[in-house]
């Protein structure tokens, strides 16, 4: 059963319906929203599988179905759905992991009174994410992109009573919003350039060859190709969402949200949206590759940022004491690897790594969640330890996940996907620095994961919570096992000699070569992994610390370095000092201007009017009035005298009348007054 492009909208619609149903249910409802959410996810998973099947029938074709949103002036805004293997794979990935995380959450959040709301927001997130994956229009992608941001804001700030969570939610939304603004400008530019911002629109779409040629050929005043500029603007949005340097600061803080949220959103899916966007618009990004005259290629920027982030993430992960923050920085580092892969030109390797990473990172986060739940919310490594014996399944699955993340050879999926990236980086002609950063990253990754496993599962329980931990309930262990299987098995989908996944994604042929060809690189990377594990064992495995307050072994040997890393290289402080203060200062200036300068101007106008009034009154008072006053005084005096005539005696009036009559009569009759 395959799903045609025109029915694609069903995939995001089912979780959306579940979320609307969940959010409008009474706040304290539990079973209804949970059941609704799970049902939505299962339905979406089924539809996604059908869609993937439909896409794989002929990987090369891009089935689209467009519809009109609304008209403004004489133009109509058109949106659309797109079905291709990339969308299919990603939909299955999101719905599958979403389902597993949802099942895990039913157990993990069983004590939380507002679990109904949680599942409502979770379904909203999945709906927005799916909408983002299957759209054919950059505008619709932007809409879902921001809704994903909203869902992440609501989920990070789920326990909004805790100020730290609320601040983290705001920080996440604002930082991703900074990226989104770059995205908006890119979107608007693309819409102006292509008239509809659709990806594939029968040749006129943004990613269709003729448009790409036109975009890459039109040059900006600085010599840049338009496609490069738009590409980089879209990359700014992707960097914001996928936590690339310098917009990565929100990801570690996002760990304030519940652990299932961290697992689904801040490890597997949402942060991968940026990579997905780059993969989706890869033709646009790569449009300027061929042009020698262009001073800067979009993909070079992506590669550089990717490499920097990979290295930075790994380095920062080494000295974190919170289990979730270690994994968060690890995610930042792995996302750096994916961007690196895209930068060096192989988006297929990036997507392959994205898929494998989604599974084993979700596994690691859920494992961490299981640990946290068992130890009554103890997240600090220094107070954990010795859990291997007590939590066998969690330990086993966590170990498998760690193996996949480190890239232990041949067995684990992480090895193959990371190999693909390193292989592509090695072949990059522009510069070898990203390749070197990748290798260093491999060592560091091995080191901090070994440290994590040793600190949490080996040695003695250093904290009160760790001492009494026992294995998590079945509903939590089930998803862990499933994910563990995927963490191991998925690698075999993309072997160099059997590139099933790559050919499907590429939609065309994919160079098949034997194991021997990339063997040298595999040996080197395995050696590096073993080196990292050894170093990790050397510092954290040899002497088992029993006291939580004991100094971290690494800190003992290199105190300065450790302090710097623990302080996250003071990046947050740097931001606060520069951007933060600049913003606050600008705000203060605006408020000052507003109150005094513009306000002042109006006040001044008001005050001048008043002074004119004063002057007028003064002149009036002394000059004119004086004159008027005594004349009026004079008049009043005479007035009073006349008043005396009014004696009140009626008869005196009559007399006057009679005399008057007489005088007038005489005048009239004889006065000759005719």
């Amino acid at each position, binding site marked *: 059963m395959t799903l045609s492009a025109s029915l694609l909208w069903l995939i995001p619609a089912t979780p959306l319906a579940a979320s609307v149903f969940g959010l409008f249910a009474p706040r304290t409802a539990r079973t209804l929203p949970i059941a609704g959410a799970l049902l939505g996810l299962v339905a979406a998973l089924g539809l996604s599988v059908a869609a993937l099947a439909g896409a794989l029938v002929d990987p090369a074709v891009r089935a689209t179905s467009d519809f009109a949103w609304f008209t403004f002036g004489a133009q109509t805004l058109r949106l659309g759905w797109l079905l291709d293997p990339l969308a299919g794979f990603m939909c299955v990935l999101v719905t599958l992991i979403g389902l597993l995380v949802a099942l895990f959450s039913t157990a993990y959040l069983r004590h939380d009174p507002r679990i109904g709301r949680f599942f409502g927001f979770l379904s909203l997130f999945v709906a927005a994410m799916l909408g983002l994956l299957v759209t054919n229009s950059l505008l619709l992608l932007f809409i879902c992109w921001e809704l994903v941001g909203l869902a992440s804001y609501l989920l990070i700030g789920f326990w909004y009573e805790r100020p730290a969570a609320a601040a983290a939610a705001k920080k996440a939304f604002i930082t991703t919003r900074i990226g989104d603004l770059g995205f908006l400008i890119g979107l608007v530019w693309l819409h102006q350039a292509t008239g509809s911002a659709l990806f594939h629109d029968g040749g006129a779409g943004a990613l269709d060859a003729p448009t790409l040629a036109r975009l890459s050929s039109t040059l900006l005043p600085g010599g840049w190709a338009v496609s490069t500029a738009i590409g980089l603007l879209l990359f700014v949005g992707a960097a914001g969402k996928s936590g690339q340097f310098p917009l990565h600061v929100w990801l570690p803080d996002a760990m304030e949200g519940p652990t299932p949220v961290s697992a689904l959103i801040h490890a597997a899916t949402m942060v991968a949206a940026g990579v997905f966007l780059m993969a989706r618009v890869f033709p646009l990004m790569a449009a300027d590759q061929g042009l020698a005259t262009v001073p800067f290629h979009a993909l070079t920027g992506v590669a550089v940022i990717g490499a920097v982030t990979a290295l930075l993430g790994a380095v920062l992960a080494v000295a974190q004491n919170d289990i979730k923050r270690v994994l968060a920085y690890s995610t930042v580092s792995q996302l750096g690897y994916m961007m690196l892969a895209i930068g060096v030109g192989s988006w297929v390797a990036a997507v392959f790594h994205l898929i494998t990473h989604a599974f084993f990172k979700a596994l690691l986060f859920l494992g961490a969640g299981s640990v946290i739940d068992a130890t009554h919310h103890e997240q600090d490594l220094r107070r954990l330890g010795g859990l291997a014996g007590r939590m066998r399944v969690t330990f086993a699955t966590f170990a498998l996940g760690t193996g996949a993340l480190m890239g232990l050879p041949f067995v684990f999926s992480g090895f193959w996907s990371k190999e693909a990236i390193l292989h592509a980086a090695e072949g990059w002609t522009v510069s070898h620095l990203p390749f070197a950063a990748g290798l260093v990253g491999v060592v560091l990754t091995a080191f901090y994961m070994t440290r994590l496993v040793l600190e949490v599962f080996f040695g003695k329980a250093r904290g009160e919570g760790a001492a009494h931990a026992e294995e998590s309930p079945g509903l939590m262990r089930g998803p862990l096992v499933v994910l563990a299987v995927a963490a191991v098995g998925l690698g075999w989908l993309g072997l160099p000699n059997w590139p099933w996944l790559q050919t499907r994604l590429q939609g065309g042929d994919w160079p098949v070569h034997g194991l021997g060809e990339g063997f040298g690189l595999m040996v080197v990377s395995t050696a590096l992994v073993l080196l990292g594990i050894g170093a990790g064992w050397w510092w954290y495995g040899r002497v088992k610390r029993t006291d939580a307050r004991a100094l971290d072994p690494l800190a003992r040997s290199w105190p300065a370095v450790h302090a710097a890393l623990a302080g996250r290289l003071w990046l947050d402080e740097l931001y606060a000092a520069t951007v933060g203060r600049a913003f606050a200062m600008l705000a203060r200036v605006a408020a000052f201007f507003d109150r005094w300068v513009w306000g002042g101007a109006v006040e001044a106008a008001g005050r001048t009017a008043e002074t004119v009034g004063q002057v007028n009154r003064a002149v009036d008072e002394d000059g004119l009035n004086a004159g008027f006053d005594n004349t009026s005084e004079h008049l009043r005096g005479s007035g009073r005298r006349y008043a005396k005539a009014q004696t009140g005696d009626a*008869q005196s009036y009559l007399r006057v009348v*009679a005399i008057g009559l*007489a005088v007038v009569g005489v005048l009239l*009759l004889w006065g000759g007054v005719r």
Partner: protein
Amino acid sequence: MSLAFLALALVCVVTASAAMISRNLIHSALLLVLTWIGLAGLYLWAGADFVGFSQAIVYVGGVSMVVLFAVLLTRRQRDEPLVLIPEAGVGRVVAGLAATFWVAALLVPAMVVAPLVQRAGPGPTLTVKRIGELLAGPHLVAVLVVGVILTVSLIGALYLAAPVTAEDQPEWDNGGTGRDRGNQEEPS
């Protein structure tokens, strides 16, 4: 000139001047009634009999009664001397007379000089039927207006004269009931 006219004229002038000079209000009121009767006679003499009779009825019958009532009601105590307080101020009398003299000085010569067209022979006759037609014809509006004036002035007079509430009624005025109004002392 006919003797009757002279007699009636004499009656009118004498009673009128006596009424105006008299110091006793009731005497002047009664004398004025006589004047009105004289005037009624004059009207009859002149042939306007309806006017004469209406003059007699209205003035002699109606107005005189009103005047007498007014005079009686405005006396403070039963035993108050009818003679009023002596006239104040000779100046007033002189000024008044002077003014009257001036007016007379204007009217009399004007009358003498005025070129009056006279009609000799018997005066015109005016039947009551004729007066009725005139009143009901061209002067109908005037009749109605006078009717309204009469009603309004009666109501007005009633309102002005009748004491509406207790405080309007001064302490000393026992409203003619003869009852002594409690121990209020005599106002100064």
